[in-house]
């Protein structure tokens, strides 16, 4: 059998999502962002929302998300994505608006915007990448950094007396009446990626049917920031991150 006999539509088991651009991503090898981008691109296309979707990219590693997923994008100031999304969602009620935010964006500088948008029950989706570190600026402590975790600004490990506790923003959001769906997932295994995709799809459906704010936290690796190989980073995440940030639905209305 020759190669041309194999490359046929009926033999195709996988293809790049049509909305994922054919460009080099700036993400480090092993980073979770690429997988999550792919899942969003798949969900938007599969739901037929290409013409209705507006993404809000954060300040942080995903600042250039607008270069990778082929929908309209607004690049927000650090932490302000939920405010930007609020306006577009209210002014274009037929559109589906999602924010894509890291832990610093969501749970440090943008805590107020995040909580208030969710509390108002804005019909938006918040995708929250929690890798417990500031990747873009070189691996400093994040609000979600674990106790004992070493970062550029906690070189001897995070201490409660010096740095306070990891902020469980997703748990807080689940307590608010404005949220309709709050879940915590991970994309470290094919099964995890499939579950995360289902969660993203549910969140987009909620926005379409105007059920309120949906939050999909993706517990993620930052192997560069954690100074581990991609495989070791996945192991470290399972051993440490999942203990503090257990996977599963926190709220399903």
């Amino acid at each position, binding site marked *: 059998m020759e190669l041309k006999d194999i490359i046929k539509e009926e033999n195709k088991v996988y293809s790049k999502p049509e909305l994922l651009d054919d460009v080099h991503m700036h993400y480090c090898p092993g980073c979770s962002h690429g997988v999550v981008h792919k899942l969003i691109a798949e969900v938007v296309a599969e739901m037929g929302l290409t013409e209705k979707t507006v993404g809000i990219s954060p300040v942080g590693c995903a600042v250039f998300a607008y270069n990778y997923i*082929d929908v309209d994008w607004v690049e927000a100031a650090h932490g302000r994505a939920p405010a930007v999304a609020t306006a577009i969602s209210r002014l274009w009620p037929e559109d589906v608006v999602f924010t894509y935010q890291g832990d610093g964006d969501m749970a440090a500088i943008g805590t107020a915007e995040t909580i208030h948008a969710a509390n108002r029950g804005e019909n938006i989706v918040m995708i929250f990448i929690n890798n417990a570190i500031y990747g873009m600026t070189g691996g400093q402590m994040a609000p979600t950094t674990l106790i004992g975790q070493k970062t550029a600004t906690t070189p001897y490990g995070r201490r409660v007396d010096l740095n306070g506790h990891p902020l469980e923003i997703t748990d807080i959001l689940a307590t608010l009446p404005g949220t309709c769906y709050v879940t915590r997932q991970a994309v470290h295994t094919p099964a995890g990626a499939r579950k995360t995709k289902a969660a993203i799809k549910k969140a987009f459906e909620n926005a379409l049917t105007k059920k309120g704010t949906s939050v999909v936290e993706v517990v993620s690796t930052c192997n560069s920031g954690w100074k581990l190989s991609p495989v070791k980073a996945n192991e470290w995440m399972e051993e440490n991150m999942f203990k503090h940030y257990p996977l599963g639905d926190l709220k399903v209305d």
Partner: protein
Amino acid sequence: MKGNEAVAHAAIRYGCDGYFGYPITPQSEVLETLEALMPWETTGMVVLQAESEVAAINMVYGGAASGKAVMTSSSSPGISLKQEGISYMAGAFLPALILNVMRGGPGLGTIQPSQADYFQATKGGGHGDYHLIVLAPSSVQEMVDFVGLGFDLAFKYRVPSMILADGIVGQMMEKVVLPPFRPRRTDEEIRKQCPWATNGRTGKRKRNVVTSLELESSRMEEVNHRLQECYREIEKAETRCEEIDTDDADYLIVAFGSIARICAKAMELAREKGIKVGILRPITLWPFPKEAVRKAADGKKGILCVELNAGQMIEDVRLAIHDCIPVEHYGRLGGIIPSPTEIVEALENKIIEK
């Protein structure tokens, strides 16, 4: 009606799509009036009380990015909080309207009127090389008129406009003629007028991205040049001012906003005493009416700049005329408003008898 209330009526009648604000004295009536008028029931305008000034300006950033005519209002400390968002809008070429009803500072300052945010409004305010179109109303009627003018200029040049009012214009009551109701643009019209806007890739068009980020230095320089070219065009076409009896005058008073009206009374008093005074009132503070000031200053013996600050606009006046005649400043601070007599005395002491 009050200046602040008039702004709310004018916004609805202009066909404004959204207002996002946060209460702060002396401008809270804008948000209060809008909430009471419930325009979402009539024109479909969105009105939202945000959790902070920071959130409000970022809502404006988002709304503007999507092509809608959106605005916010605040007063000095709140406007300081909005500067990051304003800089982002300037950097992303977004049209929007911002109203600053100035109060005294620095810090929490006072809730009484002031004009001490002149530097902040006209020289950028946030980070980076940018300008806003800055309109200074001196009456409630101009508060109304500048809503439409501010939006029109913002969309014409894709820059944010600011109405730089003071607590006097915001709070005082005057008769006004409101403009007729204009329907809000349809989504179709918005897509046509703002092909750059991020409201969904309708018709499978290429995606739009609104961002002020560009890491490649040469491209960032190009973006800056584009901004500067736009500002030069605005300077050429949109400079506005009002002159009162400047032709036969020996002395010139330059004042903006409500203070120009107190100066008009001072001018009458001075003329009764035989001192020929004329007034030049800049209406656009940026672009500053340099040429008009230069022409009006020609043949005069001196200029008095009267401002509710410690001397801010005077710098632009001196730059405009290259200090070819004496220019002095008279100002009251902390929310005190000068009387016409005081202004005449200042003119006599600082210019005439010097």
